[in-house]
């Protein structure tokens, strides 16, 4: 299968990319790593007249330390994020999630920002960045603005990024010393999760002082399991306490029904996977 014809431009700077976007507007689509977009183009589910490739913009790549946060460039490949020592130390939850994202070949090409901007509710990065309270730096013709993770994800495949804007970087508050685990339930290796849970916890002397939990594929956007977080705070890091808290995992969720399972199955799965994820994150 071959995509429909399009014109192609690979600007060398964000400014040039924004200019191309302004010129071609609705007829243009941005390509980052292309690991989700190219299959869509090949199946002709979308046929933009212009493809604007961000792959030549070096300033969008890399991870840096910025005081209380680490900053991940939107065009940083998953394989680089997954092996980055800053991410591993200060946002371990992202390291754990990237390990399970797609397969090695896709992790070499796919990018951190591209996956988040694609906003597939079954994507593996939304839940961890929401759990960690990340913020998104978005550049447009009028300058730069920052959007919280709670406001970034709008709906299925829809984010707060405007038609004339580009996601440039993701700022992740440091969670140094927090335990972390990403528990992913799949039927087929390297596929999207039926349900997955991103859990990171701060344990003090056997007690869960704080917990942050994100849910993958339990609604049209990545979700926070706020009721579980509240129930875990101050509890001992034991199987019984975590099981009781994890029973709240499906509260407020609207999971899809599809060939992999109906909504009730996913709600049950969320409680089981949350228990496993939190126990692993707490090292219990």
């Amino acid at each position: 299968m071959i995509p429909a014809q399009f014109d192609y431009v690979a600007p060398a700077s964000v400014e040039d990319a924004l200019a191309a976007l302004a010129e071609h507007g609705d007829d243009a689509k941005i390509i980052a790593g292309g690991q989700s977009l190219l299959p869509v183009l090949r199946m002709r589910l979308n046929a933009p007249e212009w493809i604007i490739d961000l792959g030549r913009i070096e300033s969008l790549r890399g991870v840096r330390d910025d005081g209380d946060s680490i900053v991940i460039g939107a065009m940083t490949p998953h394989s680089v994020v997954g092996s980055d020592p800053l991410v591993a130390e200060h946002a371990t939850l992202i390291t754990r999630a990237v390990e399970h994202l797609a397969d090695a070949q896709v992790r070499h090409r796919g990018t951190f920002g591209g996956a988040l901007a694609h906003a597939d509710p079954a994507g593996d990065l939304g839940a961890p960045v929401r759990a960690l309270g990340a913020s998104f730096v978005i550049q447009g013709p009028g300058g730069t603005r920052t959007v919280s993770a709670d406001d970034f994800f709008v709906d299925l495949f829809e984010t707060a990024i405007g038609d004339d804007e580009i996601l440039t970087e993701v700022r992740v508050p440091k969670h140094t010393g927090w335990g972390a685990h990403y528990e992913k339930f799949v039927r087929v290796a390297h596929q999207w999760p039926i349900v997955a849970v991103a859990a990171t916890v701060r344990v003090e002397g056997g007690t869960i002082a704080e917990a942050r939990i994100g849910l993958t594929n339990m609604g049209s956007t990545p979700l926070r399991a706020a009721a579980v977080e509240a129930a875990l705070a101050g509890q001992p890091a034991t199987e019984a306490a975590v099981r009781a808290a994890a029973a709240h995992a499906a509260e407020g969720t609207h999971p899809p029904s599809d060939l992999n399972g109906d909504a009730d199955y996913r709600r049950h799965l969320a409680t089981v996977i949350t228990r496993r994820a939190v126990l692993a994150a707490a090292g219990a």
Partner: protein
Amino acid sequence: MTRISLTVDGATVADDVEPRMLLVQYLRERLGKTGTVIGCDTSNCGACTVHLDGQSVKSCNVLAVQADGATVTTIEGLAQNGTLHPVQEAFRECHGLQCGFCTPGMIMQSVDLLNNNPSPSEEEIRLGLEGNLCRCTGYHNIVRAVQHAAAQGSSTAGATS
């Protein structure tokens, strides 16, 4: 048409291509490198795996224009001076194939895996090859072939590509 120039299996090539041309099409239809095969056309199966600037990618999921300026190694560029690459040798030795269709991609991904992890456990091999499907289900001998190559020290025997 967009002008691209890249290095493929050690040779410099330059061509005018349609932006929509996939890297795998370019390799097969323009350069005649049919050793890289198209399996699923949905980026699931990994049969089309090549190395782009030293890293494994699914060449059905990369545009030829995105490879402009890059170095590509295909299954046809692994053997040196008529001598099979150690991973190719290991697949032959362990019979790491049945029908052989997935083999080019399996070998290219195995070389990438061993470049990153010269002594993988069996689980690490299976995880490292999760993006490559063998529809004959001949995975056991494929894993044995990678273990054999690792034991032979393939990554230090010129396995880089």
